[in-house]
């Protein structure tokens, strides 16, 4: 166990303690006890900066299931460190924010902090684990804790709906990912990511390479809300705002990005990876930004904006993977910039989106609504929130001097380079990248403006608000203020990030491009000359402003697309269809009719046995071992067949019983013919007793059912009974025809007197050689008689309404 292991486990330990704090120290908001955890971890991870910078970082192993090659191995490299810092840093801010956001008297805050810490630990586990199985375990734990947090207000239908939806989708992806992990294991023989990366060169071309890639990507796409799996994220907005801010903007949804970045050394360089990641990312970017404008709820807009920004980072990761194909050099370097942009925007997005969610939470908290149709003119009432919203949205829209501008410029550089690629069939499709990216950026600009200006400027409508709005308490403002100042600081001095965080992260995403001791050199500058990227940004500003001002005239376009075509509708109706379909299927075969179940049982019995009998060539008949048949045996058999065949056709129960008795008598005769005196004796007695039992039963049959009717003829019954009969006959003949070994009967014949002192071989076998069977058979009889006794006694205790009445069966 190293300190890094404890860093992952501390949140779990404190999570267990959180309810205790709540119970025993109710006067202090539980959040204050929770706050030191992420703070301490943040400081701890900050102190690792220099180690990660110089070397491999920290790594340690604790064996967990050694026989399955599963060890709790933690590795801290550049990529993990960025995520760990985001998780703990924003985690601390969110805990601080939630202390003021959630009322300790009205809300079940002990559960809140329990779930939140559970999530924090799980997320740290995801980004720090080197073993894929452990990573998967933590991955599902993030899904689970996210589920719990979304449904925090579990009395609301929408919360439960959103939680269920996100659970179904992310767990679906999680399972796909698990399958992908197993495929990777089959190819490489190890679960360790570092060892898989070491073997990455041998992977492409293997049969399982593509399935593993697709399955792992499904996992990453569902978690990171990529198209078409993004639909859970807007519904997850029913969670408390600190949760939305933490999970659904800054950390959990980036787990998919982490996975893609982490596996880039394994799969990167393959055309399929490049296309899947970047095309899905681009589609998500466009779809998210265009859909955001449709909504009037601030959190819904932010949710779609998150989707779109995640798509942007995904696109960049996809484009950057081309560097692994190209190798280092002048041409390869231009794709490396995509990775730089991805990592940079990852950090930027976490800062401004976290702040924006918190601002929206403040607005919601202070006005009672998040709907932009009711909001407006809050600028003078809430100046600090307005400033923060302004900086956050401007950064999101890519306006200088904030950090979003820088990452957007780098994004454009990357897509412009991508359009000039001459491999992966980019010659034909490459031009789409800058065009779609530019359109998406225009929409991003528009919804960013909507968020800030529709909320804070315009007409103040106090009559539509539940509360009198005023500025939030200072404590609530601390966290967003810190995040917003980071937005400004990173915007003005981006290179404080590049040296400390981005370069090591790139080294872990693109390890094969570096010779030992080498490192990437990243220099981000605000002004890089009159480049095409700058003109694209200017174009966005101009067109975006025009479109924003004319928003009212063209927004109704969204109404033209019917709700039926949306993916949500597809999900809802698909779920309903699945439910109804499975119910329908179950109803068709689980009818409750025993006759039908017998049809299945005997049908499958006949079909499977006949199929395997002939398929495996087991069917063979040899007449060598047959005994001679005498005339009276034929006559007896004829009598028995008559009796047996007649039973289904008689129309009185009593006749059927008599026929059954006749069959039993003839059976006894056959035991005599085949020289089995003990069997014959037993058979005779059992036959008589059972016939008498049947007669006893008739007395108890209810009066209504006593009408005499011929059994109904059903063609299925006929076919299946004939089929079963044929099957059993053929099996018996084949079994007799293919006797492989001598029977052990000779032993009993020889030894029954010598060993057991008895001349009756059957009885010796029953009582001596195979006494166990007899013992248990006796037990069966005992249980049966006890059962009958208790059934009758219980019936006596509680009389059934059917009893009584006439005691005679009509003849």
């Amino acid at each position, binding site marked *: 166990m190293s300190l890094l292991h404890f860093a992952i486990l501390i949140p779990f330990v404190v999570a267990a303690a959180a309810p205790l704090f709540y119970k025993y120290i109710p006067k202090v908001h539980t959040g204050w006890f929770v706050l030191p955890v992420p703070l301490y971890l943040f400081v701890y991870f900050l102190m690792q900066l220099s180690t990660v910078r110089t070397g491999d970082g920290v790594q340690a192993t604790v064996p967990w299931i050694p026989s399955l090659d599963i060890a709790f191995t933690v590795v801290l490299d550049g990529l993990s460190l960025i995520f760990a810092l985001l998780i703990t840093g924003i985690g601390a801010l969110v805990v601080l924010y939630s202390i003021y956001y959630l009322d300790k008297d009205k809300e079940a805050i002990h559960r809140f902090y329990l779930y939140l810490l559970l999530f924090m630990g799980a997320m740290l586990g995801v980004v720090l684990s080197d073993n894929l199985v452990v990573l998967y375990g933590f991955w599902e734990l993030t899904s689970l804790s996210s589920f719990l947090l979304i449904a925090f207000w579990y009395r609301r239908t929408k919360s439960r709906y959103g939680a269920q939806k996100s659970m179904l989708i992310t767990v679906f992806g999680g399972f796909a990912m698990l399958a992908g992990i197993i495929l990777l294991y089959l190819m490489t023989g190890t679960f360790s990511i570092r060892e898989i990366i070491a073997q990455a060169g041998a992977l492409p071309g293997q049969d399982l390479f593509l399935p593993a890639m697709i399955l792992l990507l499904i996992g990453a796409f569902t978690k990171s809300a990529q198209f078409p799996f993004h639909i859970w994220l807007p519904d997850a907005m029913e969670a408390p705002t600190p949760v939305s801010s933490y999970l659904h903007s800054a950390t959990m949804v980036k787990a998919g990005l982490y996975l893609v970045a982490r596996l880039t050394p394994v799969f990167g360089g393959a055309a399929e990876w490049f296309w899947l990641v970047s095309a899905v990312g681009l589609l998500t970017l466009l779809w998210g930004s265009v859909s955001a404008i449709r909504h009037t709820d601030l959190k819904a807009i932010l949710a779609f904006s998150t989707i779109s920004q995640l798509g942007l980072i995904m696109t960049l990761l996809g484009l950057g993977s081309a560097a692994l194909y190209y190798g280092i050099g002048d041409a390869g370097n231009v794709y490396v910039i995509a990775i730089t942009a991805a990592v940079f925007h990852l950090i930027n997005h976490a800062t401004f989106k976290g702040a924006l969610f918190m601002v929206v939470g403040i607005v919601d908290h202070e006005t009672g609504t998040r709907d932009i149709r009711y909001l407006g003119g809050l600028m003078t009432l809430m100046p600090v929130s307005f400033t923060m919203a302004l900086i956050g949205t401007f950064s999101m829209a890519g306006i200088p001097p904030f950090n979003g501008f820088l990452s957007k410029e780098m994004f454009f550089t990357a897509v412009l380079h991508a359009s000039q690629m001459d491999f992966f069939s980019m010659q034909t499709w490459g031009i789409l990248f800058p065009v779609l990216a530019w359109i998406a950026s225009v929409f991003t600009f528009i919804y960013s403006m909507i968020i800030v200006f529709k909320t804070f400027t315009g007409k103040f409508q106090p009559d539509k608000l539940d509360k009198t709005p005023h500025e939030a308490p200072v404590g609530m403002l601390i966290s967003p203020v810190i995040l917003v100042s980071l937005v400004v600081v990173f915007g003005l001095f981006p290179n404080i990030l590049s040296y400390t965080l981005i370069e090591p992260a790139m080294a872990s995403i693109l390890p094969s491009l570096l010779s030992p001791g080498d490192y990437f050199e990243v220099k981000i500058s605000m002004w890089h000359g009159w480049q095409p990227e700058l003109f694209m940004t200017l174009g966005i500003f101009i067109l975006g402003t025009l479109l924003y001002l004319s928003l009212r005239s063209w927004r109704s376009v969204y109404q033209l697309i019917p709700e039926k075509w949306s993916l949500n509708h597809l999900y809802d109706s698909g779920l309903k269809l699945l439910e109804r379909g499975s119910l329908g299927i179950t109803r068709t075969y689980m009818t409750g009719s025993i006759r039908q179940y017998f049809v299945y049982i005997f049908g499958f019995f006949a079909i499977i046995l006949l199929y395997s009998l002939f398929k495996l060539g087991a069917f063979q008949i040899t007449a060598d071992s047959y005994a001679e048949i*005498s*005339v*009276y*045996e034929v*006559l*007896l058999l*004829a*009598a028995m067949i*008559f*009796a047996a065949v*007649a039973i289904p056709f*008689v129309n*009185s129960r*009593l*006749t059927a019983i*008599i*026929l059954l*008795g*006749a069959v039993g*008598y*003839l059976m*006894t*005769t056959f035991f*005599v*013919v085949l*020289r089995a*005196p003990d069997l*014959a*004796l037993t058979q*005779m*007695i059992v*036959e*008589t007793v059972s*016939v*008498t039992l049947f*007669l*006893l039963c*008739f*007395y108890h049959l209810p009066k209504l059912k006593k009408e005499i009717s011929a059994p109904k003829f059903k063609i299925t019954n006929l076919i299946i009974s004939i089929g079963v009969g044929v099957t059993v006959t053929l099996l018996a003949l084949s079994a007799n025809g293919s006797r492989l070994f001598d029977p052990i009967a000779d032993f009993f014949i020889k030894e029954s007197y010598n060993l057991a002192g008895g001349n009756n071989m059957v009885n010796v076998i029953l009582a001596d050689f195979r006494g166990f069977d007899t013992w248990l058979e006796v037990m069966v009889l005992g249980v049966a008689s006890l059962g009958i006794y208790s059934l009758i006694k219980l019936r*006596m205790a509680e*009389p059934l309404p059917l*009893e*009584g009445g006439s*005691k*005679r*069966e009509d*003849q």
Partner: protein
Amino acid sequence: MLEGMLTAAAIILSLSILTCMYRVIKGPSMPDRIIALDTIGINMIALVAVLCVHMKTQAFLELILVVGILAFLGTIAFAKYIEKGVVLEHDRDHPDDR
């Protein structure tokens, strides 16, 4: 000579069982069937005896006695059922009886 006689006897007895079976199936009344079943039992006794001689064994002699008793018991059970609708009558004084 004896072999032939025994086989002939067995065949005749089997034929008689077969014809009784016709009566069991055909009826027409329930007592007809019950008497036919009883006759099958009696024929069986004879057949088993013939087979015993044929196989030169005494192993089936108990069976003859058992069939004799049981065929009788079975017939009584059927007869009682047709007569009274019940095989075992309830004790009227028993408190559990209803």
